């Protein structure tokens, strides 16, 4: 797990990233909300950095790579080629999300899900699925309360069979782990891994829920 929100899988020489939401900023322009058009650029920068750092052979995009169907079309050419260059020498696997179903550029095929070494990768967690599964979609965020203070950070969620990735895009919001969407994690042994500035911090679900934890 990397503080950028990427996940590296050493035995597979694979890097996993999720919810990049390219061109989210510009998607608001047609409604008259001129969000800064730099988010794609910055997310790409992050992507280039982690690829350089882990030097994977394969990269999995776990869905919602593009914010909407026309995001690829909107993307400035310079960013298009940056993305293509970044994944040029590795095998890129594009799993589709709810935002970009069918919106992945033609030259890549997008999959609904894929099984790798017995683990299923897909965009949205499937409750009825009992096997090991890595998904994304929810942009999970953990909140730690400590002596009256709160720290809110994107996080990985891990339970016995399920693993949920944080969003990798820079302009993406987050959903608190206490939300109903994560209900099933509230009932079982779950660990959260919060993204710090330079490292990952671990916190168990029990600790997060127990709000009256003070200092010693």
């Amino acid at each position: 797990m990397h503080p950028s929100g990427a996940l590296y899988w050493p035995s597979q020489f694979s890097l996993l990233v999720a919810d990049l939401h390219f061109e989210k900023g510009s998607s608001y322009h047609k409604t008259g909300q001129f969000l800064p058009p730099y988010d794609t650029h910055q997310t790409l920068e992050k992507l280039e950095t982690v690829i350089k750092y882990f030097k994977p052979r394969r990269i999995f995009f776990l869905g919602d790579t593009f914010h909407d169907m026309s995001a690829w079309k909107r993307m400035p050419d310079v960013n298009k080629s940056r993305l293509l260059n970044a994944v040029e020498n590795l095998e890129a696997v594009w799993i589709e999300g709810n935002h970009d179903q069918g919106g992945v550029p033609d030259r890549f095929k997008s999959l609904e899900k894929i099984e790798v070494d017995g683990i299923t990768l897909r965009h949205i967690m499937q409750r009825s699925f009992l096997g090991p599964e890595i998904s994304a979609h929810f942009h999970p965020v953990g909140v730690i309360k400590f002596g009256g203070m709160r720290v809110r950070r994107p996080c990985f969620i891990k339970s016995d069979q399920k693993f949920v990735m944080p969003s990798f895009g820079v302009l993406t919001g987050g959903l608190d782990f206490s939300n109903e969407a994560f209900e099933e994690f509230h009932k079982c042994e779950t660990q959260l891994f919060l993204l710090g500035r330079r490292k990952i911090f671990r916190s168990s679900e029990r600790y997060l829920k127990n709000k009256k934890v003070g200092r010693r």
Partner: protein
Amino acid sequence: MHASSGKDVLVLAPTGAGKTLSGFLPSFLDIHDRGSNGCLHTLYISPLKALTVDVHRNITKPIEAINLPISFETRTGDTPAGRRKRQKSKPPDFLMTTPESLALLLSYEDAETYFSRLRFIIIDELHTFFDNKRGDLLSLNLERITSLSPTAVRIGLSATINNPQRALDWITRDRGSLVEVSEAVRPEIEILEASSRIPWSGHSAKHVIKNIYENISRAGMSIIFVNTRAQAEFVFQELWQVNDKHRRIALHHGSLERELRRKVEASMAAGRLDCVVATSSLDLGLDWAEIDLVIQIGAPKGVSRLIQRVGRSNHRIDQPSRAMLVPTNRFEYLECLAAKLEIESGNLDGANFRVGGLDVLAQHLLGTACSGNFQADLLYAEIIKATPYSKLERDEFDAVIDFVSNGGYALKTYPQYSRLIETTPGTYALRDVKIARQYRMNIGTIVESPMLKVKLRNRMLGNIEENFILNLAQGDTFLFGGMVLKFDRLHDATVLVSKTSDNEAQIPSYAGGRLPLTTNLASAVRLLIGDKKNWKGLPGQIQEWLNMQDDRSHLPDNKRLITEAFEFKSRFYFVVYTFSGRNANQTLGFLLLRRMRRAGLKPMGFSISDYALAVWSLKPVENAEKLLDPSIMIDEFEEWLEETPLLKRLFRDAAIISGLVERRHPGKVKTGRQVLFSSDLIYDVLRRYEPDHILLKAVRRDAMEGLIDASRLAATLANFQDNIIFRNLDYISPMAVPLVMQISKESTVWSELTDDILAHNEEEIICAARVQSLH
């Protein structure tokens, strides 16, 4: 009168002098002489919806008495759609409205005809507009009206302030005149004598609830003012617990559903209530002649504010208003007494005037474009006539136009989506009428903290701060709408609650947004403490407390800056008694964390009050002068400003006001959280790629005053630079107790510390896990 001769006028009068009605007189005379012209004749603007309703009620009598054949109506966000539509096609002679509704009216394409024959503009409670963005917006719209109807006369009505000339400049065009009505009698103010011990800290007033109840029982109609919504809930609840005489007590605050508030207001007017517990939602000029006691619970925070509240009682000019102050802790006792002395000697707070916000200007430019094409040159000339914008540079104005058009980024992306298009050089038009619809849904400069609806079975009770709810666990109980409620769950931005039989809530709700102590009152408190001769009015227990402080450490006064260091419960504390108000103290807290960290003192957090701040660290402070050297306002300040989450909060407001992020979009509901989070991210992206963006500039400027209050802090540090007293104590000092008690409840973390906290948290878990595995 001046106004009848076509001159603008400012009327300064103490509350209760009947100034609202006097404002209408020239207008009555004019319409009486000339008759109605079938157009809007007089516009009345007040800061509060409730006030427009109240004034509407109050002018009915004189209008009927002199048998004026005119129509007069209110128009606010609460006005039903049908009436709004009619008001647009067939305007009443008199329209009573708020700045937001005025901006809305001015954004329609027919604004020019609508306002063309306007004769009078009356602005009530003018003093509430000088130092905020609402005032910026109002001043811009007044200039707009003047352009549409150059002969319309402005009449400003304000409470008494000590710098009237600046207020006159603000409201009147040239040749305006000032009318000052002096107060006939000073109010009678007493401080409640507590029969029990006055607490060190907290704001509950629990210790004197019985005394308060006795006082309202003896009085006829009374209002109890408190400083926060949470406090209103608490006091209301406590009063009902002791209400054995079955007094009719109601609650009024801004988070309650509109219907509930209206019901309370109507009951008050009809005399069906004995007492109302209220926040500033009832602060301003509502005229109920029958109120004979005002109780202020908690610190008054400013002399003028207190006078305003006290003025709610007994609206007869020849009799004094009666008020009772109820301090809830020891520092507040000092503040109450100082305020009482200031009022008795006639010292008022000065009004603060601000430089107009660029975010407000952006909103105004879009609104102007909604009503029709504009020429940049003419509009610029109009805008710099508004006092808050008189120093606006042309290039800034142009940058704001660019921002409104397409975000104002160096990187231009989708010109086809621009909101404004330049039809001919210097003339701008709205690209699409849909944008006008969006604009009208997002007018206003008041950005609420993210709120969630509270729902009890099928009934909506009102709104509550999201931050408060996020800190609750299922089953926790809290006070709201005068009831103890149990938190069940959060569903679609609605807080689902159920009733409980508990009398007491577990979680005392706690809300920010409190006003800082004014400079004038702060200095009065210092004077009071610094000289024992002034202690006569203080109860024995407070004198004892001050004497203890004098023995063990040092008393704050007007000439020196007192600081203390001590160890308490294995933490080291450094306390600075700045008396600079909570905002400036908070800023100093952040800066000290930074400087102390650099000095290797391992600071961990701080807590603040209006009077002082306490930083706690793992190593002791040994040199206060070095830490408080004014250079902190340059070195640490610049760094901190780049990173502070406070700036993010301001940015969120500016992003919403300027229209970068919408509050509401046709057909879509956006919850507060979504806005908050995405605006934080936008801020980060913008700072990185366009640090000189106009919106960042706007935010930095806002930050200097208000929330960060840098100017006040800088003044404090510079004034006391060579007069710092540092006491190294063996034990906690009496005056530091309230702050240290507060630390666990509401201390503030430095954003950079968050990783330290995460790490600490992880260590604790690891420890816990080890202990478990040993068993």
